[in-house]
């Protein structure tokens, strides 16, 4: 895939360049042809006119009716340095006023068709031929004769083309060289990109070292973005690694419990002791499954992007009051069992705004906070819940958390010392992460006997 794209850029550049070159050359060619033709016409017209004027100045009284063929007129010796000539392209004729041919070159000139009013240049055909000739008509000085000097137009056109070919051929021959050079240069300029691609291709999936290759300015944003991506992937990988190692570590304790109870059940001789061990084993399994559930939940939450980057996956209109009522109803049994006093403060001011987010996650957030409060309040203690425009607060009395540990609550697996209640140290982390995903802030405050968790809207 990468290889194909890499080649196509080079190929396309070369192709575009070749097409552009051919187009500009075509225009240049047409232009050049027009210029050359005008030049050739001017040049030959001048020559013809000069020749005609010479003839017109001659004394026609002494003319024989026809000159011998010019080919035989001069001795061979005079024709050694004859140059490159094509003399059958030129011809002349002299007519009297009545149109009788007085004199001609006995070749083409004799076929000139007499034009009585002829004066100056005119294009016409010769007798018995299809080719167009350019003929200049000029009356002689004595007025008795009409001089005509003509040249075949094809000859001129051929000459123009020959001139053009002479100019253009070197360019045409150099075109492949040009294209090859272009391909090589483009290839060389793209080499850093190829090296980046090769680097990416052989890179190990977990390798997040930035790309150091020097690349052209145009490709620098791409490499910079890639390096930024590596940075983010790296931090994600680190987070996941820490998470996995933490999780494995945390699973050891429940596993040790299961293992020890299973062994006790195995060696117990007393049926009551064995029954007790099996009961403990079951409790341990329940605890381990709960821990794995919470780990999975947290892992899923951790791998989601922050709210600043992407919205939580589902967008429901969620009413805080409704969620809170549900969470409290769920904890009702325990509240009564522990004989806790639950007080809901009436909202001070306008009601809490609805939030757009994932309803299930927000329900878990509230459930975790409420169940924490219920769990860590000693029997007969108090729980106070307040919901208003600014936030939701759940506070409980009789906690045993030293105030200086408040900032560490919500760290994964962190449990303040002195906890008698079973727990994984993940509940608040999950709540905090859910809050984060919804762009909310979770604050823990400890004031003497009161432990308060606030969700700030």
């Amino acid at each position: 895939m990468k290889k194909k794209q890499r080649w196509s850029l080079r190929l396309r550049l070369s192709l575009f360049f070749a097409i552009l070159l051919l187009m500009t050359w075509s225009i240049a060619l047409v232009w050049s042809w027009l210029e050359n033709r005008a030049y050739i016409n001017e040049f030959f017209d001048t020559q013809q006119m000069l020749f005609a004027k010479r003839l017109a100045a001659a004394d026609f009284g002494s003319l024989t009716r026809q000159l011998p063929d010019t080919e035989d007129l001069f001795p061979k010796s005079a024709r050694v340095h004859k140059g490159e000539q094509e003399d059958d392209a030129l011809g002349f004729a002299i007519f009297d006023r009545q149109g009788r041919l007085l004199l001609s070159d006995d070749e083409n000139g004799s076929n000139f068709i007499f034009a009585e009013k002829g004066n100056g240049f005119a294009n016409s055909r010769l007798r018995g031929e299809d080719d167009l000739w350019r003929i200049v008509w000029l009356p002689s000085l004595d007025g008795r004769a009409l001089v005509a000097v003509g040249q075949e137009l094809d000859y001129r056109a051929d000459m123009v083309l020959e001139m053009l070919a002479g100019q253009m051929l070197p360019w045409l021959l150099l075109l492949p060289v040009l294209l090859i050079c272009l391909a090589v240069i483009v290839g060389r300029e793209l080499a850093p990109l190829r090296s980046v691609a090769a680097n990416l291709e052989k890179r190990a999936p977990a390798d997040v070292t930035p790309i150091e290759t020097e690349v052209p300015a145009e490709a620098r944003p791409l490499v910079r973005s890639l390096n930024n991506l590596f940075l983010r992937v790296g931090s994600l990988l680190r987070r996941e690694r820490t998470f996995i190692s933490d999780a494995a570590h945390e699973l050891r304790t429940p596993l040790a419990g299961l293992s020890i109870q299973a062994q006790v059940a195995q060696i117990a001789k007393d049926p009551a002791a064995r029954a007790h061990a099996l009961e403990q084993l079951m409790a341990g399994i329940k605890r381990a499954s709960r821990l794995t559930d919470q780990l999975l939940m947290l892992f899923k939450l951790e791998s989601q992007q922050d709210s600043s980057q992407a919205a939580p996956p589902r967008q429901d209109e969620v009413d805080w009051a409704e969620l809170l009522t549900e969470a409290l109803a769920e904890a009702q049994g325990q509240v009564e069992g522990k004989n806790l006093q639950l007080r809901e403060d009436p909202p001070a001011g306008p009601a809490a705004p609805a939030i757009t987010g994932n309803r299930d996650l927000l329900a878990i957030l509230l459930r975790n906070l409420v169940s924490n409060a219920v769990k860590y309040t000693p029997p007969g203690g108090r729980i106070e819940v307040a919901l208003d425009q600014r936030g939701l607060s759940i506070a409980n009395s009789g906690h045993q958390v030293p105030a200086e540990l408040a900032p560490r609550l919500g760290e994964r697996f962190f449990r303040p010392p002195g906890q008698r209640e079973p727990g994984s140290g993940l509940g608040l982390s999950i709540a905090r992460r859910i809050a984060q995903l919804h762009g909310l802030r979770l604050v823990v405050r400890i004031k003497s006997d009161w432990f308060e968790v606030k969700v700030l809207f």
Partner: protein
Amino acid sequence: MRILLIEDDPIIGDGLKAGLAALGYAVDWFADGPAGLAAGKSAEYDAAILDLSLPGLDGFDILRQWRGAGLALPVLVLTARSGLEERVEGLNLGADDYLGKPFALEELNARLRALLRRSHGQAAPVLAHGPVSFDPERRQARKNGEEIALSPKETMLLELFLLNKNSVLSKNRIEEKLYPWGEEVMSNAVGVHVHHLRRKLGEDFIKTVHGLGYALGTVPGPTSGAGR
């Protein structure tokens, strides 16, 4: 053998207590640091099993304080933190052995036995006194090579005497070693167990030191040994 177990996890603690009791140890279990620290200082234990992550007080802190107070109790550290650094730190702080979670009860037992052997300055795994020998690992007593059936408490008592060959053991000390906290002790329990041991191993095996307690009897002769 009285073992101090400091472990905050209810399931592990409960299992260890039950498992070690089944293996013939008297176990006191504390689930939080400060209580465990105090217990280690106040009662006479043969060894301690110490979890590192404890509520209230870290296992390392307990170890540091014990060693600082000159307590030579053999300590086996039990932890989910099995990193090299932690192991080294634990051993440097005076832990005698290290066991990572999860672990097999058998291994814990073997390591505990090794610790106890070392702390009693005894290299051979089998204890012997005159015609009586005792294998602490198998909890098996023999007299003249013949197996003698003993109750768990009698076994513990025999082991206690064999590990303290040259000292007189007071009734209180014996009670402390045989019974963990919370277990009911009848007023003459020690006397009853000693009586049973004498009946099974010979009247001279344990002598009464009046006003002080009990001690091992003198061995009949240098030529008479275990398994003859």
